[in-house]
């Protein structure tokens, strides 16, 4: 075991960034710096969704991010999970209220397993936006469909806490049938579809409860592949959410450090007090570690590496906690200003806390890891 792994040192997965990834990051970063300011992001909490639409159009169409994961011969950019992860780092850094992970990662991955290349092409071009209709808390292991087709073949059922649905034109609905799980497509504005916005902890990614009361749908995968399509989509969601969480954590660390260099009490920069320095050093170690976990999840997903499921669960179990810790430290170490509506720290705290539940909690991923690595909770 030792010799095997040390030898692989020379050809192991790259956990850093390629030049292509760096330049992609730069273009996303520049756009978000100009357009996605905290003052505009916070407006989502007062019901103003103006930023969402224009920003997503720029990212999806102008920068072409919607089609990153779609192969070139199916109308996309033919990039990999590595590039999508870099985009998510930046989106996390700005708590950007755009449906990239819901549409361009999760829904797109589910659709890639079917043969509806027309919809896929539209998604890739940014001509439409899709959402997978499952609760945001669903993971590849916990997911159970709650929608059925009735005797007329129309959809019946309710799915709560769906993300990305408010931005979506197309809903991808896992439908439970006698033969298994089929994936169906319905128009979000169609008859028999009720999309009810939910007041959410994180309004930069607002939830919706969706009722299907006899909606007409089109099947995009057959029953044999529907279940795998949904689970693969949720798996990749978990793997890449880690990069968003890394972006959130990195912002919180960077801004807390720079604030504490500036802020003076007792005639000294607050960042010079050892009680504070040690907390920030610990946080830095965690964020660096989250970097490795998130990059490994992205790299294994990009390569369809056999380790990718384990890597996704490791990344979620680790990065979700780091993002929350970083946001909580950000609020605390900013003191009074960190508690205000005016300072953006709360946007990151709310995003991090909601992300902790998304695609399975850290505890759920640890349980699953125990199974994956032969450390079960109960005697076998």
């Amino acid at each position, binding site marked *: 075991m030792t010799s095997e792994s040390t030898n692989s040192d020379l050809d192991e997965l790259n956990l850093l960034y390629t030049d292509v990834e760096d330049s992609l990051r730069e273009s996303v970063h520049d756009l978000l710096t100009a357009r996605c300011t905290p003052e505009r992001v916070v407006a989502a909490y007062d019901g103003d969704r103006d930023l969402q639409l224009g920003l997503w159009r720029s990212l999806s169409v102008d920068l072409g991010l919607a089609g990153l994961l779609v192969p070139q011969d199916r109308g996309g950019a033919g990039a990999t999970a590595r590039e999508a992860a870099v985009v998510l780092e930046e989106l996390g850094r700005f708590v950007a209220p755009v449906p990239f992970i819901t549409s361009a990662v999760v829904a797109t991955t589910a659709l890639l397993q079917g043969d509806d290349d027309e919809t896929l092409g539209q998604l890739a071009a940014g001509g439409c936006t899709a959402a997978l209709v499952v609760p945001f808390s669903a993971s590849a292991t916990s997911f159970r469909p709650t929608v059925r087709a009735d005797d007329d073949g129309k959809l019946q059922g309710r799915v709560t806490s769906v993300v990305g649905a408010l931005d979506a034109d197309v809903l991808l609905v896992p439908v439970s049938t006698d033969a298994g799980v089929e994936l169906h497509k319905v128009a979000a504005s169609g008859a028999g579809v009720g999309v009810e916005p939910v007041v959410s902890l994180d309004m930069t990614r607002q939830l919706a409860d969706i009722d299907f009361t006899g909606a007409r749908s089109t099947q995009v995968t057959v029953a044999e592949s529907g279940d795998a399509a949904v689970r693969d989509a949720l798996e990749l969601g978990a793997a890449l959410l880690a990069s968003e969480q890394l972006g959130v954590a990195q912002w919180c660390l960077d801004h807390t450090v720079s604030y504490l260099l500036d802020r003076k009490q007792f005639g000294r920069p607050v960042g010079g007090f050892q009680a504070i320095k040690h907390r920030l050093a610990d946080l830095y170690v965690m964020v660096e570690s989250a970097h490795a976990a998130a990059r490994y999840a992205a790299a294994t997903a990009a390569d369809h590496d056999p380790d990718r499921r384990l890597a996704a669960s490791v990344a979620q179990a680790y990065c979700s906690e780091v993002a929350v810790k970083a946001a909580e430290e950000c609020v605390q170490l900013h003191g009074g200003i960190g508690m205000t509506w005016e300072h953006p720290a709360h946007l990151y705290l709310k995003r991090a806390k909601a992300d902790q539940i998304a695609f399975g909690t850290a505890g759920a991923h640890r349980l699953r890891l125990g199974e994956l690595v032969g*450390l079960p909770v109960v005697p076998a």
Partner: protein
Amino acid sequence: MVRDNMVRDDLRSRVKALLAATDPATTDRLDFLRARFDAGLAWANFPEGLGGLGLPRAFQPYVDQLLEAGGAPDNNPLRNGIGLGMAAPTILAFGTDEQKQRFLKPLWTGEEVWCQLFSEPGAGSDLAAVSTRAVRDGDSWVVNGQKVWTSAAHKARFAILLVRTDPNVSKHAGLSYFVCDMTDPGVDVRPLRQLTGEAEFNEVFLTDVRIPDFYRLGEEGQGWKVATATLMNERVAIGGAAAPREGGMIGVVAKTWRDRPELRTAELHDRLMMLWVEAEVARLTGQRLRQKLALGQPGPEGSTMKLTFARLAQQLSGLEVELLGEDGLRYSDWTMVRPDIVEFTGRDAGYRYLRAKGNSIEGGTSEILRNIVAERVLGLPAEPRTDKDIAWKDLPK
């Protein structure tokens, strides 16, 4: 990649040539190790003529593997950890050509074991406060003082030694760095028993020890700079080695979990998996750090690996004692012994738990490492230094 393969081809033929010229089955162990050193296959990253080939460090495991497959003995690296991990890179960086020729080969073969004479009772975290004095006397120096926490001192031929050569300047400026011959009659080594019961370390009393000026590493007064380089190597050595999944302490605890299903509870399982995740992330973080170093993006990040390593070793070994329940109440042996090799994952759970307490103290306490990360990585203000511009002799002691 193409270049890597060419290098590997070259290494294969060099190993083949060595094994053909010096058959390990019929050659004395030390003779073989000397031949291996001369063939440049001792440490790939060292220069040619000094046991290496000037290659990236990452090729060494490949060489080790080929030689092991060829039935060759190794240099038992754990027996001379200080020599290989700390003294050798320091000699390479600061030694004269003569010093390199004299010291490196028998160090690598293990003929000469090395130890480190840095810490003192009055100079732990504040290492630059060392008070062991070296006074020049012609072509040599006369050393008096007391050192502590010296592993392997009782079997060492040489030591790297940090001493004060000028008490009239500030504490960092008055230090020099020497090689000390441990067979000098003025060197008195006494075992230092620690909380595990054994004496892995020693106290070393130096009384009128004579050291030739030829044994000085670096300029007089440059001792702090040389010592800092040594300590950076120590932290990399402690926290930065490549490891397989479930390598180290997590592997020990995972094995107990697998072997003893009757001990399992849901509460212990979640704690185990939390630490399993952290250990795996630490492994990946080390991998990422090595990739950064290979690209020449160095920094004090080695400190972060050691912080994580120490915390995980302590939490994991503590968890295992609890996991063992009634067996966790027992201890293998309190007899005072001087172990030849120290393995943090060796002996029993109680020993591992107790020994791991040292992980956050030795080689820089976790508190000092946090200062280093905060100041050198994050750019936060340095700790106030009241002793900075005062001559060492005038400092309050």
